């Protein structure tokens, strides 16, 4: 009898590939199954569903099923009924259900059919019983032994290792590794590392993740040990796969206020020039607002644009855009994931008030040389990757360049013809596995922009970043990462037309940092992260130098500023009960403003101005000018109300010691940065946030409501008519204002099916108050007024419709309240012209913003072994041609005041991009 079933099984397997459950419309099952044997249970289900059941009756002997269900899908019924038992099931396309005993599988017959590859292995190879020690776990059919038998110190042991893609050797981030009985799981970190503490014995590790095929590995856990897993890439990365991987993260994850995007999601969102733009996609997320069309300056939950920490493989990027913000400065081909933390910022991160945008690159293909690229209307890009030492080390290098220079030279307008505008960026990343316990990663990044406007003013800016990481695994439960980073941002503006006033203005900001981060998986309940970091800022805020012998420009130098920011942190993620998890973190940061510098002293009690300077104090090199320090609390809590819904709450405090100075309506590249000093205090922010999360329809629809309240102390604001360029006494033009922001974000996300995407609505306010000092220093009489980032209503829809695996369309919709503006209230006649008397600051608003974009993606064939994969992206930005005001301005022309609104994308902008991959 046993043999017959076995033969039937093998034959069936060889005949057709089996699909994992859940991808079909399944029959619904209702009924009460009380204390039934598996045979009886199967018989009843077969009657209801017409699915055929196969099982080995001896294997399921004695197993009883208890379940009461009402109109549930078959797979769910099976899952619920069999979860408490040792019996496992698989369903194939031909409506066959296979029941097998989990324990019997491990020694006699591979009996689980969750995954097609498993079946193929079983059918094709005879060594299904092979047990393997060490090496890379590539096969779901094989049994991997962990640890020496009998070496376990207790009833549990820890298995740890990396999950990598088999083809490229790239680590898989955020993949779930779990066993179902008992329910224990973990997800891989940024290195693809996981650690699971399980009862000693046989287990099936289920592995699910973004862009990989769902699979599992069978292990026999004897004692602590390693399991390096290689998994197959899902070539087209269907939405289903990705979503299923994290399908209950919305509800089950502890982290709130975090948005994670993988590059495949990013690529689907239409953009202005057909160029995949991560910042533009981040702007579609709830709580994130643009400060102006065509600008990548972002405001997160009412915070200022400088309050976002943008990390590129852990190195800070100061100017994340090209061409005044029309393109993001990151090559999409080398990116892996982008994570945005809006609240509950992990203790590991610090230094900015509002958010952390963590951008990670791929490691590169460890198996073979590969490349990808794209050709667009304004830019082209190329990326190469491959192994240096196979399976040990790999590189990835990507470059991107514009050819707008070429276009400008062909324009009829003379001043534009004499203009130049170009940019490029290059990123390179190398990872090298020294041995099993040590890995090195190195990243370099360079972006450069250059403009020359009407042969008069030449303008250039660049970002340079580098990071070096050494990751050391001490043992299965503890690993550490030592990271050294360097970032530099600078610009130079030169004007050479008039020899008398020919000059060059330069700005430079450099930072070097060192940090050590450790993760300790104490047990299944506790994961402890701790570490320390220190960061040195070197700032050259402005240097004006004459150009040429005739220039009368007097050299001016604002000198150098230096600061040291150091921090210690520890955080513990504690799963108190299966329902309740908390994360408690504390970061303590210390900042010192350092010499050498001359500091002005001002008469006490009066507004600081050049007229009230009383003394100048010189601080020697390395002398401390001012010290600020304080704790930063990071608390998070999750309570699962049910399998499908949870409540989360968080509180975090953040401190920021470096400030961007900009009093223009838009972000301008001539905006400078300022370190905290004796007068400019650090910004401190407190955010309270509560959210409710609920998933529907088998976790395919995620909904959430998050609400927050935020206080910002010593928010940087400016007096009226502040002068920020080459100002030796910036403290006279800056005021330390108070900010507050609050809001509620509703979000619905559907991740599977032909129609998928997300819809969010945000109501939020962001207010500022400058009520300190003399009336002249106050703004709007010291009352709260809307900040530049106050846009109360915001609706975003990012939707995709997939016609087939090769053809899909996406539609973006965005509506938001117009940004605040200061309006002219009345006019007067002075000095020969009619002039304007302005309202209180930001008392009115520009017209509402509304935009629809549309894109089509056409992919080439999906044959896995094809030489090169290609795709076309056709997109139309601003489909309805709405003239959204980029800016509103007023001009006195011939004695008359005229108001104008400039729309940058005043009509639909079509574009086409060709992408390839080999």
């Amino acid at each position, binding site marked *: 009898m046993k043999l017959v079933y076995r033969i039937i099984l093998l034959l069936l397997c060889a005949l057709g590939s089996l699909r994992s459950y859940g991808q079909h419309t399944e029959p619904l099952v209702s009924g009460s199954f009380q204390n039934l044997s598996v045979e009886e249970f199967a018989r009843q289900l077969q009657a209801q569903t017409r699915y055929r059941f196969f099982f080995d009756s001896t294997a399921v002997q004695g197993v009883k099923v208890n379940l009461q269900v009402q109109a549930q899908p078959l797979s769910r019924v099976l899952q619920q009924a069999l979860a408490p038992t040792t019996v496992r099931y698989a369903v194939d396309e031909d409506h066959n259900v296979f029941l097998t005993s989990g324990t019997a599988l491990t020694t006699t017959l591979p009996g689980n059919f969750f995954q097609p590859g498993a079946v193929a292995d079983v059918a094709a190879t005879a060594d299904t019983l092979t047990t393997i020690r060490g090496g890379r776990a590539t096969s779901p059919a094989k049994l991997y032994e962990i640890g020496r038998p009998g070496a376990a110190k207790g009833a549990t042991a820890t298995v740890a290792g990396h999950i990598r893609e088999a083809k490229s050797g790239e680590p898989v981030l955020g993949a779930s590794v779990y066993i179902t009985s008992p329910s224990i799981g973990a997800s891989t970190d940024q290195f693809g590392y996981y650690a699971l503490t399980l009862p000693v014995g046989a287990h099936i590790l289920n592995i699910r993740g973004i862009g990989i095929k769902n699979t599992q590995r069978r292990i026999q856990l004897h004692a602590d040990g390693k399991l390096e897993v290689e998994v197959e890439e899902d070539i087209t990365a269907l939405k289903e796969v990705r979503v299923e991987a994290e399908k209950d993260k919305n509800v089950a994850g502890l982290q709130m206020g975090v948005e994670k995007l993988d590059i495949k999601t990013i690529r689907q969102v239409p953009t202005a020039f057909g160029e995949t733009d991560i910042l533009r996609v981040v702007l579609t997320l709830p709580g994130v607002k643009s400060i102006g069309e065509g600008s990548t300056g972002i405001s997160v939950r009412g915070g200022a644009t400088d309050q976002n920490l943008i990390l590129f493989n852990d190195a800070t990027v100061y100017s994340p855009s090209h061409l*005044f913000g029309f393109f993001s400065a990151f090559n999409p081909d080398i990116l892996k994931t982008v994570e945005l933390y809006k609240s509950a910022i992990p203790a590991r991160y610090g230094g900015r008030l509002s958010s952390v945008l963590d951008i990670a690159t791929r490691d590169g293909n460890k198996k073979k040389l590969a490349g990808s690229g794209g050709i667009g209307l304004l830019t082209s890009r190329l990326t190469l990757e491959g192994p240096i030492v196979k399976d040990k080390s790999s590189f990835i290098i990507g470059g991107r360049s514009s050819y707008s220079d070429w276009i400008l030279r062909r324009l009829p*307008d*003379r*001043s*534009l013809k004499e203009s130049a505008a170009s940019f490029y960026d290059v990123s390179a990343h190398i990872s090298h596995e020294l041995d099993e316990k040590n890995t090195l990663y190195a990243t370099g990044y360079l972006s450069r922009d250059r403009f020359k*406007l*009407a042969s*008069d*003013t030449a303008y250039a800016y660049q970002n340079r970043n580098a990071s070096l990481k050494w990751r050391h695994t001490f043992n299965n439960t503890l690993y550490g990462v030592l990271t050294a980073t360097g970032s530099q941002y600078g610009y130079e*503006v030169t*004007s050479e037309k008039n020899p*008398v006033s020919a000059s060059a203005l330069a700005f430079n900001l450099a930072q070097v940092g060192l940090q050590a981060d450790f993760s300790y998986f104490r047990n299944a309940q506790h994961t402890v992260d701790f570490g320390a970091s220190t960061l040195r800022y070197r700032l050259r805020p402005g240097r*004006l130098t004459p150009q040429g012998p005739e220039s*009368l*420009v*007097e050299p001016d130098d604002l000198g150098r500023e230096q600061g040291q920011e150091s921090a210690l942190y520890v955080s513990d993620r504690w799963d108190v009960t299966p329902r309740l998890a908390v994360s408690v973190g504390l970061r303590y940061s210390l900042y010192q403003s350092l010499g050498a510098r001359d500091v002005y002293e001002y008469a006490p009690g009066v507004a600081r101005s*050049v007229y009230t300077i009383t003394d100048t104090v010189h601080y020697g090199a390395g002398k401390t000018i001012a010290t600020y320090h304080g704790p930063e609390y990071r608390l998070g809590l999750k309570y699962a109300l049910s399998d499908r819904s949870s409540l989360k709450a968080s509180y975090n405090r953040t401190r920021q010691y470096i400030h961007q100075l900009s*009093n*223009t*309506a*838009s972000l*301008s590249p001539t905006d400078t940065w300022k370190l905290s000093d004796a007068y400019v205090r650090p910004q401190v922010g407190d955010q309270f946030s509560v959210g409710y999360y609920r998933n529907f329809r088998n976790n395919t629809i995620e909904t959430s409501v998050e609400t927050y309240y935020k206080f910002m102390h010593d928010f940087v604001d400016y007096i*009226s*008519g*502040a002068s920020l*360029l*080459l100002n030796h006494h910036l403290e006279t033009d800056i005021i330390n204002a108070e900010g507050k922001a609050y809001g509620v974000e509703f979000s619905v996300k559907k991740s599977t099916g032909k129609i998928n995407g997300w819809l969010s609505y945000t109501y939020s306010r962001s207010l500022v108050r400058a009520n300190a000092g003399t009336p*002249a220093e106050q703004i709007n009489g010291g009352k709260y007024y809307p900040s530049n980032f106050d846009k109360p209503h915001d609706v975003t829809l990012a939707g995709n419709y997939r016609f087939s695996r090769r053809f899909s369309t996406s539609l973006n919709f965005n509506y938001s309240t117009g940004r605040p*503006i200061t309006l*002219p*209230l*009345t*006019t*007067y*006649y*002075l*000095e*020969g*012209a009619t*002039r304007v*008397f*302005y*309202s209180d*600051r930001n008392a*009115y608003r520009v017209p509402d913003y509304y935009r629809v974009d549309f894109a089509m993606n056409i992919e080439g064939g999906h044959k896995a072994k094809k030489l090169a994969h290609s795709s076309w992206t056709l997109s139309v930005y601003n489909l309805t041609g709405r003239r959204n005001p980029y*800016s*509103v*301005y*007023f001009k*006195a022309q*011939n004695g008359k*005041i005229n*108001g*104008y*609104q*400039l*729309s*940058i994308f*005043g009509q639909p*902008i079509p574009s086409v991009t060709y992408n390839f991959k080999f």
Partner: protein
Amino acid sequence: MIRFNSRLRNYLAGALVLLLGSCVDKFEPEVLDTPQNYLVVDGFINLSGPTTIRLSRTKNEADAPVPVEAAATVTVLDDAGAAYPLPEQQPGTYQSAPLNLSSDHRYRLRIRTASGKEYESDLVAARQTPPIDKVSWELNNRGVQIYVSTHDEANATRYYRWRYEETWLFHSAYQSGVEYVDGTMQQRQEGIYYCWGSENSTAIQLGSTSRLSQDVLTDAPLRLLESNSLKLGIKYSILVKQYALTAEEFAYWEKLKKNTESLGGLFDPQPTQLTGNVHNLADTAEPVIGYVGAATVTEKRLFIDRTELGSILRFKTGYEDCGNPDTVLLADVPAYFSRPNLLPIEGVYVARTLIGYTGNPAVCVDCRLRGTTVKPDFWP
């Protein structure tokens, strides 16, 4: 620095308009019914000559005339207590006798309005304005650019403001030799073909040498005329007046310029509230518009003759819309030319017999509608 940044902005905006199909639309927010009615003080204390102060009010309707502040008592005071009255010349305009004030004192303006409110400007230091070295021009591809150069050997002035008065000779579309007076056609007594037009500067022109090692301004751009401007058609003259400013006054004018001349462009600063140096003595919170400084004035005049612009062949005339003259037969002359808006040009003869006159609307014939026939004193 400020200047070239704003130029960068303009070019960038231009580039965007061309590259991206951007567009600039009128933005006309609903007229804000605000009852604001603030005093506006326009003028400065002239140390060597008559001081003229104009008082007006803010106005809320675009087309209404500027409401003047009439019947006020205006006085210049120095820090020693001396007072110089400014009697009202015409409603809202107050002017002193020519004064010769010492630059050792500090000065302020006192205003008492008809409604009894008292205003005073802050005491300001008197500034001696250095002479203008040169007013020059060049024809470049953007037009005729006029420059001003000055210097102060003492390196004390540093901040400059300029105003200018332009005067130009032009002629109407048709030269009229006859006039219709009291029912008879007669030889025209006074020519109405050539006139002098004039205009004062409306833009705030500032210059500063505060970042230069010497107080020398060379070829600071002052005025840009289109190369075919009608002002250049025959002969053009510009009188440049130079004022020395204090740093604070300079900051005020700079802010005023920023607020009203280039605002909210791509990277322009946000509008700002302006505070001048005039205050209501009873209520310091009341906004008063204007900054009253004290300085001497220096000036220099430049002429540009059409012959110097050899390469420019055609100039605008301002009379492009004028049609060809009508021929009015003698019988129709009384009916036609008794209308004051139609003027005769010359007689029409057929075989030496006068049969009528040509005529054209007065706006095309009488240049006095756009200028004056009185030759200015300075005109060569």
